[in-house]
């Protein structure tokens, strides 16, 4: 089983999860952690440590909002064979992760699929439509 947590600047992650829940019409098994603007990240580290400890024996995906940002940098230190970080998560990526039995398969393949779906979800629409014509 793959467990997931989303860590973002402010409440971005929580909002993203709420929108995904609305679209998929189900409660999603994901924890949202907000980066504390005033803090040094220690609270976020503690929450992540607890999350990973609580989910020992599971694979864990940590979604972050932006590569190079504090949530992403802090998450990076937790990467190992069972923990992967996907930065720059967006709605298409999150929906891909939770929709349609995407948890069936190899951990590495699943995170690659989510990464690809998130990337594919970004388009300059006029160019996209132009390509389709």
């Amino acid at each position, binding site marked *: 089983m793959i467990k997931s947590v989303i860590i973002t600047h402010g409440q971005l992650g929580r909002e993203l999860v709420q929108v995904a829940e*609305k*679209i*998929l*019409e189900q409660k999603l098994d994901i924890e949202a952690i907000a980066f504390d603007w005033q803090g040094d990240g220690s609270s976020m580290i503690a929450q992540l440590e607890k999350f990973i400890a609580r989910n020992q024996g599971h694979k864990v995906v940590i979604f972050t909002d932006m590569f190079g940002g504090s949530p992403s940098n802090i998450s990076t230190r937790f990467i190992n064979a069972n923990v992967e970080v996907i930065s720059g998560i967006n709605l*298409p990526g999150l*929906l*891909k992760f939770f*929709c*349609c*039995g995407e948890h069936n398969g190899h951990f590495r393949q699943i995170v690659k699929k989510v990464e690809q*779906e998130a990337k*594919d*979800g970004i388009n300059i629409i006029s160019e996209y439509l132009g390509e*389709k014509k």
Partner: protein
Amino acid sequence: MIEKKQQIYNKLGLHARAAAKLSHMANMFSSDIYLIYNEDKVNAKSLLGILTLAASVGNEITLQAAGEDEKDAIAAISDLFDRKFDEES
């Protein structure tokens, strides 16, 4: 392989929530399932793929399935369209 023409009846067309329901249902079947609209053919098991069709109310698409449970898949998906994705009474 079987195909069926399908009208879109719900007002919002193949928008996010409808696409989520559709892809969720398609994933319940082992058959390969596709939606064809104009020149585009997308995997019905991909939420984002369905959204790229940007198909609206009144449009007609083609459902295509190939596999052991192709008949059941087309019937179930067609029913979902006919029920307007349970969005409207």
